[in-house]
């Protein structure tokens, strides 16, 4: 039990000792991405090998360090030496690694990078006392392009601490911000600090967080709520999941600080049902925080009471909309309602309620810890701090990246992301999920912040970045997102339910080759209608995928409608595949992959596609190592 700030300082000191033990410490990234890549087996193998060899080594699981492409990742810390991250681990490699460690050796051959300064991934630092010991040739994190321009604020600690152990969070400075707030600062001072930091809501809207808190605080009534929106539903986005899985305490601490500032004694975290690991890690974190008295009554002897409940969503995207979420929490169907009244005025059970997204809450402890000025020093004029993006799609380095606001898309895609897979041409990057838009190559030098993205017809959204190459059909992409939205529209208002459905049907006929003259105009008309007339922001932004693709890729639409061609070779009704006999090396890859046995040919002889049998699935087009398949 930590009853006072003094006790917290003591606990931190002892936690730090065990955080940097005088023995080897092995950490395996067991976030959902790691587990999907086999991290569970690796953790088991390492434990097994250690007990087989009878070694005295600390082994634990951590969250995701963000570099999903390199998963499974294992971090080895030897006393006095830098962290060494090993990538693409397998059970065999892991056993080998343990064996080497038993002999006191590091394995530069398996290493991805070393980390000389722990502050890159956390708020803690320590001197290196053991030199480099054979790690000279392993690049440092700053030298790895993926990490070079990243600044970790919200995702700091992710992959660095064990989310199942509150002491590790405390060791890296956790709960010291809460301690500072409840003992030294008035609620107004906290709001001032957050406002001065210029923190804006990371859920997509970008509303100034401090202002939101102030509105909620100024509402009459004793009973207020703080809410954490963890219903991250955008396809291709997983920032919030990583934070909740890898650093759940930062969310809890942020919420506690917010609750203190607003005057709330109760908080809820709404986690989407598809995130079981996040729920379980949050529950563990909650239990530990409660047992140490960091949540509950009279926190740190300050008289401030606060506790948090976890609510699991049931799979509705629209419950990420704040009024829909509150309806869901109160036991109603998760459909949004007209605002005003805003949640800050009449939210959960008609009480003032402050809703922020996971990433926003995770920023708060760092702002209090490092100060508003430091935070405001990162980012751009209108958008301060960093933004976590989940970088996915046709890019080499997929993963979670946290970059200062204002970083250009080119840096993200080419420097951090390492460029397009298979050296194909970049076509567009989709930001903000189904609410966002596609940004073309001409705007790659756009500094990414809330306002700039809005200007080009996209939006920050929660931070999904989907990179698309030349073989992506933009009409098909628009159709994909609309299909998602048709499925996920709650169906309450006509504009979103009927409007988006009819837009989808128009796109469906365009990709089927039945597009009509005037369809683009009709789509645009529907877009502006849906945007203008919808009840909530799901509908309000539903037009963005269509509008932005028409804006930047109108020629593709025209090709589909007028020439009945899909330039990217994706839309099956509009494409015929043939083999370029000059380029075909006769390797047979396409023959193996063809599901309809449409490709014939001898080894090392140019192959042929039998048009009658071809179902235009495009598998050969994707698989051909020599780009010898032609799509027309």
């Amino acid at each position, binding site marked *: 039990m930590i009853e006072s700030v003094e006790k917290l300082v003591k606990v931190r000191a002892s936690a730090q000792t065990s955080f940097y033990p005088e023995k080897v410490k092995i950490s395996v990234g067991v976030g959902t991405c790691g587990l999907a890549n086999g991290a569970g087996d690796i953790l088991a193998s390492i434990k097994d090998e250690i007990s087989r060899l009878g070694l005295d080594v600390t082994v634990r699981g951590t969250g995701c360090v963000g570099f999903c492409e390199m998963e499974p990742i294992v971090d080895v810390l030897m006393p006095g030496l830098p962290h060494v991250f090993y990538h693409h681990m397998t059970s065999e490699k892991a056993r080998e690694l343990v064996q080497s460690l038993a002999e006191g050796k590091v394995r530069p051959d398996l290493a991805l990078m070393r980390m000389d300064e722990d502050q890159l991934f956390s708020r803690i630092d320590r001197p290196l006392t053991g030199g480099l010991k054979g790690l000279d040739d392993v690049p440092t994190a700053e030298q790895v392009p993926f990490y070079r321009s990243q600044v970790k604020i919200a995702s700091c600690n992710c992959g660095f601490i064990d989310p199942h152990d509150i002491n590790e969070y405390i060791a890296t400075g956790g709960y010291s911000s809460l301690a500072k707030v409840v003992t030294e600062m008035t609620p107004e001072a906290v709001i001032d600090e957050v406002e001065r930091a210029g923190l804006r809501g990371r859920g997509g809207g970008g509303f100034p967080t401090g202002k939101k808190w102030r509105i909620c605080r100024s509402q009459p009534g004793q009973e207020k709520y703080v809410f954490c929106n963890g219903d991250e539903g955008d396809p291709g986005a997983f920032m919030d999941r990583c934070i909740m899985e890898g650093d759940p305490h930062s969310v809890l601490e942020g919420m506690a600080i917010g609750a203190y500032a607003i005057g709330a004694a109760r908080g809820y975290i709404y986690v989407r049902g598809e995130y079981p690991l996040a729920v379980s890690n949050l529950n563990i974190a909650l239990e530990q925080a409660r047992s140490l008295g960091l949540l509950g009554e009279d926190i740190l002897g300050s008289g401030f009471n606060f506790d948090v409940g976890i609510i699991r969503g049931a799979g509705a995207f629209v419950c990420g909309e704040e009024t829909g979420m509150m309806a869901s929490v109160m036991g109603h169907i998760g459909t949004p309602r*007209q605002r005003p009244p805003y949640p800050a005025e009449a939210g959960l059970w008609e009480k003032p309620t402050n809703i922020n997204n996971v990433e926003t809450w995770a920023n708060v402890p760092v702002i209090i810890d490092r100060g508003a000025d430091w935070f405001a020093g990162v980012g751009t004029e209108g958008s301060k701090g960093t933004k976590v993006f989940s970088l996915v799609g046709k890019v080499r380095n997929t993963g979670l990246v946290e970059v200062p606001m204002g970083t250009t898309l080119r840096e993200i895609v080419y420097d951090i992301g390492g460029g397009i897979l298979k050296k194909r041409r970049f076509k567009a990057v989709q930001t903000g999920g189904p609410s966002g838009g596609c940004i073309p190559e001409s705007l790659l030098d756009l500094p990414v912040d809330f306002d700039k993205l809005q200007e080009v017809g996209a939006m920050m959204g929660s931070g999904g970045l989907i990179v698309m190459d030349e073989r992506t059909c933009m009409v098909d992409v628009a159709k994909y997102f609309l299909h998602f939205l048709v499925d*996920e*529209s709650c*169906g309450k208002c006509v504009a979103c339910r009927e409007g988006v459905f009819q837009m989808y*049907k128009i796109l469906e006929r365009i990709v089927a080759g039945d597009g009509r003259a005037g369809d683009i105009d009709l789509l645009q008309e529907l877009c502006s*209608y849906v945007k203008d*007339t919808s009840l909530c922001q799901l509908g309000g932004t539903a037009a963005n995928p269509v509008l932005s693709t028409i804006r930047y890729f109108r020629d593709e639409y025209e090709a589909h409608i007028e020439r009945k061609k899909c330039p990217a070779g994706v839309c099956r009704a509009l494409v015929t595949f043939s083999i370029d006999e000059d380029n075909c090396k006769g390797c047979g890859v396409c023959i193996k992959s063809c599901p309809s046995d449409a490709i014939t040919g001898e080894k090392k002889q140019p192959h042929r596609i039998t048009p009658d049998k071809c179902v235009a699935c495009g598998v050969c087009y994707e698989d051909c190592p020599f780009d010898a398949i032609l799509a027309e």
Partner: protein
Amino acid sequence: MITLTIDNQPVEVDQGQTILTAAKAAGVEVPTLCHHPAVPPAGACRICVVEITGGGQGGLVPACAYPAQEGLEIETRSERVMRSRKMTLQLLLARSGGAKVIQDLAAEYGAKVMPFEKLDDDCIMCGLCVRVCQQIIGPEAVGFAGRGMQREVCTPYKEKSEVCLGCGACAYLCPTGAIDPADYCTHPLEGIPNEFNCGIDSRTPIHLPFPQAVPNKPVIDRDNCIKFLTDGCGACKTVCPAGAIDYDMTDEYVQEKIGAIIVATGYELLDPSIYEEYGYGKYPDVVTSLEFERMVSASGPSNGELTRPSNGKPPKTIVFLQCIGSRREVDGKPYCSKICCMYTAKHAILYKHKVHDGQAFVFYMDVRSGGKNYEQFVRRVATEHQATYLRGRVSKIFPQGGKLIVRGADTLSAGQVEIAAEMVVLAPAMLPAEGVTALAQKLRIGYDEHSFLLEAHPKLRPVETNTAGVFLAGACHSPKDIPESVAQASAAASKALGLVCHTSLLREPTIGVIDEASCNGCFECEPVCAYGAIGPKELRGHDNTVTAVVATINEGLCQGCGACSVTCRSKSIEVQGYRDDQLYAEINAISR
């Protein structure tokens, strides 16, 4: 109060009101589909969008759900608004193109059929049914299931609902007529029969008892009102602009001192289903004359359109049967109901007005058309309106080939006739209103073996009863038509006025008097008084304490019959002018 501007016109509304309310206050029309004043708003149909052009975050907002705020500037028909409404209607045309309300609005806003995917679904998902069921009525029988285009209104697990009250609020509010509680309710739904229309149609729990009711105000039928059954609803109170709804009002007893009573309790009709040969209650096309009256009435359930209850088509052949239960000694009423001949003649004319090519037949025993111009009227029915009058009675009615075969005797041609009728109208016997005997007993007035009230004298005092101050008017006395009823009522009113227009009652002095000194208060006289004129009287001494209770006679009621006088053992009651001493004096004078 909040002041905002709607279409450049300042409006004041109370805090908590919506833009829609403010628009109404300003006399600005805003179309709605998913809105009802008694139901919490949803903002779902988006047809009521208006544009905020100043004083707040701009943009389109639903007038029905957006709160009126100080300083808002609203335009209800800006170009942006009209464009949005038009597209909303175009989308709804694609979804529910068959719904009239959508077609009408589409025409108004110039919405066209667009190259959209067509859906044949009348439900526009406005959710009024769900909201009224969940938030107003309360049983939560219907709700939404599914999301997006899969969203639908249904009961839990789409099983028939046991909690549905069958109140019909959902169907009542549905703008497109897409919902019918009969589809999802486990128990059969019965409308509340409209009593005034003989139960031909149904009415709501709040209703006007009949057109031109006095007072002409709606009443709440507590036996059927959800508010009184389950304490749900209360919608009427929400919407009543006059604040006139008061659920706490109860019936009360009113005591008044009055000088005269006129009994005008009217009549009812004999239930003809007791005569199986006519098939009333068994064949829908056999109706009573009163039901027929409502069917052809312009204010009736079908607005005057005459159709067969069985198939909704106009009856091409109609048969009127008179004397159903009247002039029927054995199993009916021996008296003539008097009005049937004339109203049947009228009905035959009305029938021809409704069905020009139809043929009417009338079975009669005797046409009794005694009255000014009555005979000429009946003749006209037969001549101008070609109704065939058949003298005889009907022995049987049975269905055949979608028609009713009316088999009867035509005594004038001495043969049997069979008519294939599409509708049969019965003229049942007239009965005094139910409960009139209990009333008569209270009023101490007489009634005959058929419960018609008795007049004091059939020739000389046809309006009065034997109880002074109680008069008769209309069919409570005997079967009467309207002119006779009016005449009698006028006479009764004159008689009553004759009583009450004086400050004192002037009457014959031959009434009973009580000798209070000798009355011992046994009150044996009280039950023998046919007029209820005898009551108790307290005698008080000097100190105002009750010394004795003796009988007293109400001088207004006493008819001087002397029944009390002969009953009194102590000889304390005598009739004035006929006292013993007076009689003895008379005898003495004669015998002197």
